């Protein structure tokens, strides 16, 4: 190529500009929302003013209740500013990376303590509670178990929800099937599902993929997924009680959709199908209730999970905690924020308008959601709940769950022998959990 001298310089400078662009792309960390602690101290300008970073997976409408509480906190503490960082996707990845690089936010929501704790990057909350004589007995004890791992306390609870069965009254009326009542049996459930399943409509969606939500059935039959300490699964997963529970789940699958779908009807898609009347019953937390009621299009009821003969109700709990990183620079202020958000004042603001249940017992009583016709079932699910979900017991649970899921898929899709399949899955998973 022949280039005139002038042209050559143009090309050279273009190339140089490109290189510079690349260089700046990798040096731009400090500009991208991730404030260094030093920068936040300078931000305020005023003496003694601190800016806290608060990270949550909530966004949009579900963030608003938390934002309301934060606003109230800032009014009360004029010297503390709280900057909310909303990370709806890949939350764990973002949190772990920031913990590893010591750029984690001062306060963050956390649910998967077995994943974060072993790296040693989380602040022990017990010391703060002790120092401040903070009353931990005001929370439901089972929820506090979800804040612990390895015997230590890592967070204070945010909100909680149990799961219950939603049902579409109109579809029941059309089929002439009576509404389900709390304390109904497994057999009645399968029977109801069968009666409500017809072309274009499913009584209930049971997929083999959602292993987590199978736990209430397993528990209420006296079984468990894994031992209390999370280390022994062989002999626990494949117990006779669980063979019975999975036989029931398989009946449930056969009675309805027989849908071999990973995504189609799981959580959100299931919600859509329930709202459009394609599904008569569906299993979920209390979160969509507010929106469905506000829309007012659907005549719905809620009922507790069905029970096996002689079984007792043991609900599953979704909850999370406020935590702070060991490397935090504004721990005093962070503790103030956590105390406020998780304590009576903040939680009252957050749980208003049936957004969620309060982990503080007195506020939960005051809210009175337990007597609400729609929320009663969810409250009942908490009463008997005395077990931690399996993922809270062992940091390697997600791997073990993959193996269980593959086993359940074989049982559901290809009618594999239940006892044998659970036994094989348990052996594989045992190897992972040690």
């Amino acid at each position: 190529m022949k280039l005139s001298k002038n042209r050559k310089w143009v090309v050279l400078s273009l190339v140089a500009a490109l290189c510079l662009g690349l260089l700046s792309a990798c040096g731009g960390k400090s500009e991208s929302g991730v404030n260094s602690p030093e920068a936040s101290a300078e931000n305020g300008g005023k003496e003694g003013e601190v800016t806290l970073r608060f990270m949550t997976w909530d966004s949009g409408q579900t963030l608003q209740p938390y934002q309301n509480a934060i606003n109230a906190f800032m009014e009360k503490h004029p010297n503390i500013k709280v900057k909310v960082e909303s990370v709806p996707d890949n939350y764990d990845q973002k949190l772990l990376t920031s913990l590893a690089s010591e750029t984690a936010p001062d306060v963050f929501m956390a649910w998967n303590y077995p994943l974060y704790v072993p790296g040693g990057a989380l602040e022990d909350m017990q010391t703060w509670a002790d120092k401040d004589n903070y009353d931990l007995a005001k929370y439901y004890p089972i929820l506090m178990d979800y804040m612990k791992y390895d015997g230590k306390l890592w967070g204070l609870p945010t909100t909680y929800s149990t799961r219950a069965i939603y049902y579409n009254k109109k579809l029941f009326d059309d089929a002439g099937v009576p509404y389900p009542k709390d304390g109904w049996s497994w057999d009645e459930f399968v029977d109801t599902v069968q009666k409500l399943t017809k072309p274009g409509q499913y009584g209930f969606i049971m997929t083999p993929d959602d292993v987590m939500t199978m736990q209430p059935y397993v528990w209420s039959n006296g079984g468990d997924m894994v031992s209390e300490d999370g280390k022994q699964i062989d002999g626990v997963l494949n117990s006779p009680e669980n063979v019975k529970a999975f036989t029931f789940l398989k009946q449930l699958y056969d009675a309805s959709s027989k849908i071999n779908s990973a995504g189609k009807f799981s959580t959100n898609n299931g919600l859509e199908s329930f709202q459009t009347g394609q599904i008569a019953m569906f299993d979920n937390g209390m979160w969509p209730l507010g929106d469905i009621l506000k829309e007012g299009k659907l005549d719905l009821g809620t009922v507790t999970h069905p029970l096996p003969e002689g079984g007792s109700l043991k609900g599953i709990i979704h909850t999370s905690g406020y935590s702070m990183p060991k490397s935090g620079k504004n721990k005093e202020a962070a503790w103030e924020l956590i105390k406020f958000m998780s304590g009576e004042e903040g939680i009252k603001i957050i749980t208003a308008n049936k957004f969620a249940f309060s982990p503080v017992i007195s506020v939960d009583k005051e809210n009175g959601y337990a007597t609400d016709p729609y929320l009663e079932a969810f409250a009942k699910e908490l009463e008997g709940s005395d077990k931690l979900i399996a993922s809270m017991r062992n940091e390697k649970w997600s791997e073990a769950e993959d193996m269980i899921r593959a086993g359940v898929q074989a049982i559901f899709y290809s009618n594999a022998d239940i006892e044998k399949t659970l036994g094989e899955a348990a052996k594989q998973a045992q190897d992972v959990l040690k």
Partner: protein
Amino acid sequence: MALASSDTLKMRRSAKLKRRRENVAGLMFISPWLIGFLLLMFGPLMFSLVISFTEWNMVGSPKYLGLDNYVRMFTNDPFYFKALGVTFKYVFIMVPLQVIFAILIALLLNRATYGIKFFRAVFYLPSLIQGVTLALIFSWMLNDDFGPVNYMLELVGLPRVHWLTDPNVALYALIFIALWGVGSPMVLYLSALRSVSSEYYEAADIDGAGPVRKFFNITLPLITPTILFNILTSLISAFQTIVLAFVLTGGGPANSTYFYSLHVYRNAFTHFKMGYASAMAWVMFVLIVILTGLILKSSKYWVHYEADGGGR
């Protein structure tokens, strides 16, 4: 004599200078990529090689494991060979189909018909839509209940197909969707076809060769360099395929679309086993290098470069 030698020396020196200048210019031109690679990719690459010998969940310090990760995938991972099998099946069905379809369409579009330019654009256009967008479009197209594809099947009296929700069908559905991108290799073949000199065909006409004979004895051999290029690039990208399965099936139903890349992703970002995931990624890298090498080696038996005056 002395004069002459100094002249040749000068010439040689100026040639050397010119070559060096060209080298420098060349390096400058690829420098954005080169610098980008060295600064942004080389470090992480080496890092992933190092942590592939450790156990590490991003927080805390990595724990040295030696070759344990590499041993584990072949001896003690119930999903490894499943994922490898799914990936190989996908590659060995998708790549040949893509090559065949791309050539067939290119042959069709190589005719001097009225409005051919319009049709070329039409056939190329779909390949501009790729990745997540493509996946989302097909999640509706192939929807069990409302999808247009099932609707059309029903119109002609065929049963509905659970495209993405039947373990026996889902992988083929993904292959079908991936073939949507056939437009890009098609363009390459089209330009290869157009560069085949018409003299060959004229000579073949005189010899009385039919169209089939002309295709197999003239066209096909002369576009083999493009076929080689196409096979290599789509082989490499097919082994790494993740987007369609990630968005459409999540590896399901029943792990029937659980690609190797998904297994790597799952270990890295669900189980947070960075070491194990890196080890698997490196094994895939070696696998691809070996396969690419084999294909390149085989190419001297079937790829014909016009400059050599044909192959063996």
